[in-house]
């Protein structure tokens, strides 16, 4: 269902979810996905409407604030793209939360509806603020951001009347993060030196002086372009081999921490996901989708499900009688914003 005419994707995605959900079971009972393609379509149309309204608003600003005068190569299109970048960032987070809420509200286990409390807008504000702060402090706040954003997502999750609890604290994982942070810097330096040495060596072995080389670059022939592309790809591989495993090492640690600090009533969760498995999840899956032009996506789904079922361990059995059907209403439509910014995997 990947290569499909755009509009059918809502129904395709719904079918895929029904398949995935019903093949995952906890304590012998399968999950159910009861969303409708129509709901996704409505959500998407609403998001489209939101963007249309925003375009109109920016048009008015252009007319009445800037009086149609471009100032220093700042035109209508710049104004629009800047404003979209500004609202797009927060809205993507809002959409992420709203999308989670939608998916949970359409998920049933033992006939009991799951759900998510909390406000998507305040999550969006929190996420925007934290990410901004993180970016301005050289990403030293990453553990704080990860934990602070995991908390609302986990502790607002409910299976019927049973809430999830999250007991993580950023302080617990700072040690590992600082280690990762400086190892990462070292890795970039090493990778940089390796790439420069390789490029320099190639140029020298081809017998080209640096002047000639610059001349070649300023008047590129097809061969030069190809050579540069090959070198860029090689550099990408070197960086990928050094930088990405390190990243997976940190991500696996973070995942283990977040999962083991979550519980639902007397049900405890844990995982021992390894760096290697995280590599398979983050990098291999990406490569599979990329190299098969998206056709390999079902395979990636299958790998992901297998990883979850192998690596999410559950201890304790909930008292079924105490988990009641929730009485609140669930959202009427789904995921519009999320779909708009295309960050939803499934």
């Amino acid at each position, binding site marked *: 269902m990947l290569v499909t*005419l755009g509009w059918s994707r809502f129904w395709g995605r719904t079918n895929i979810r029904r398949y995935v959900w*019903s093949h995952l079971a906890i304590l012998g009972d399968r999950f159910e996905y009861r969303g409708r393609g129509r709901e996704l379509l409505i959500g998407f149309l609403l998001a489209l409407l939101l963007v249309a309204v925003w375009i109109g608003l920016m048009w008015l600003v252009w007319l009445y604030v800037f009086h149609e005068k471009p100032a220093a190569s700042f035109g209508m299109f710049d104004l629009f793209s800047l404003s979209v970048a500004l609202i797009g960032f927060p809205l993507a987070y809002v959409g992420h939360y709203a999308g989670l809420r939608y998916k949970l509200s359409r998920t049933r286990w*033992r*006939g009991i509806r799951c759900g998510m409390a909390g406000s998507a807008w305040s999550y969006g504000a929190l996420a925007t603020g934290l990410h901004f702060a993180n970016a301005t402090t050289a990403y030293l706040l990453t553990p704080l951001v990860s934990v602070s954003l995991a908390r609302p997502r986990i502790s607002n999750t409910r299976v019927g009347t049973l809430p999830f609890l999250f007991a993580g604290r950023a302080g617990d994982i700072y040690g590992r993060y600082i280690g990762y942070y400086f190892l990462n810097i070292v890795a970039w330096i090493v990778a940089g030196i390796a790439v420069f040495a390789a490029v320099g060596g190639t140029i020298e072995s081809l017998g080209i002086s640096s002047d000639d080389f610059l001349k070649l670059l300023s008047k590129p022939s097809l061969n030069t372009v190809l050579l540069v592309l090959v070198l860029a790809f090689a550099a990408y591989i070197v960086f990928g081999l050094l930088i990405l495993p390190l990243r997976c090492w940190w991500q696996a640690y973070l995942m283990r921490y977040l999962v083991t600090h979550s519980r639902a009533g007397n049900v405890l969760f844990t995982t021992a996901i390894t760096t290697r498995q995280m590599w398979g999840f983050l990098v291999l899956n990406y490569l599979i989708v990329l190299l098969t032009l*998206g056709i390999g996506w079902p395979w990636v789904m299958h790998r992901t499900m297998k990883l979850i079922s192998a690596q999410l361990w559950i201890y304790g059995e909930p008292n079924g009688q105490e988990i009641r059907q929730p009485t609140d209403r669930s959202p009427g439509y789904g995921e519009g914003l999320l779909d708009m910014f295309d960050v939803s995997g499934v």
Partner: protein
Amino acid sequence: MSIRYFDGESAEVHSVAVRVTTNELVIYRPAGAEVVARWPIGEVAVLGDVQHEAAPPVVRRGSDARLIIEDPQVRSHLASLVPALQPLVPQPVAVGRRIAIFSAAIVALVGMFWGALDYGTEYAAPFLPHSLQAQLGETVLDDLLADKEECEGAAGLAAINRLANDLAREAGYRHPITVHIVEGGPVNAFTLPGGILVFYSDLITQAKDSSQVAGVVAHEIGHVVHYHPTKGLVRAYGMDLLLKLVSGGYSDMMSTVGGGGSLLLALRNGRAAEREADSTGVDLLERRGLRADGVSSFFQQLMEKEPKDAAAAAGIWSSHPPTAERIEATRRPATGRPAFSTAEWQALRNVCK
């Protein structure tokens, strides 16, 4: 017979058995035969289907209660007794037929869209309001000229604008033409939507005589009167839209590959447009009784400077037809009035000073 029943009020698991009477589905505990629930046959339904779900739940309409039946034998037994439970039994799916219909529909849709784009723009572009085209052109122009010096010689600009507008009127084009001259190189000129021509001053200073510049002006007017720039833009946006539709916006790789396809299409259209502009340009000059050998002699000069015909070597990757072919197609005798008066030509040569 392992059937699990959930009452829809709590997550408690009930292991049950099911019995079908004439008008009821009776759910009971196997031990002690205690009845858990009675569902009227008319209210029984299956949510989802076996193609997508491993165990589609059996429900009573309007309630959250569920029966989960994993055993295929039990499913087909119940389905034979209750028609509403038919979805529990896998139905044979004509996969081949479905794929065929789907592919045919997609191919037809893409083909229609492509056709509409390729031929539709050909006829629709001239009907786009001129003001809109001009606005498009000016936006692009502002972008292109942001860090460039424009030449302001009034007499020179007047001369080239006069010729451009004369030629456009000759072709029956009803809107004004504006020519901009940018200081420096490359030796080139191009046309933007809305009758905006941009010349680089190197083209004027390196031209052997005024007929070459007139030839290039005529060629660009050829683009204008055939609405090539507007068509190009519409096609580019249309192709982008088509790709998004086909790929569902999912795969970046897909759009990269597709982008290559639309580039090839744009280049093919480009070559056709160049030929059209060449012939229209020469034709316009002849109709006004002007010297029309400038186009071919301009190309001749290009060939002499760079004997390797880049366009011919690039083949389908070229936006322009092979230069030799264009020289042949536009060759005309050096007769007729000069397009610029001597004073005009002097002014045009000095337009950047």
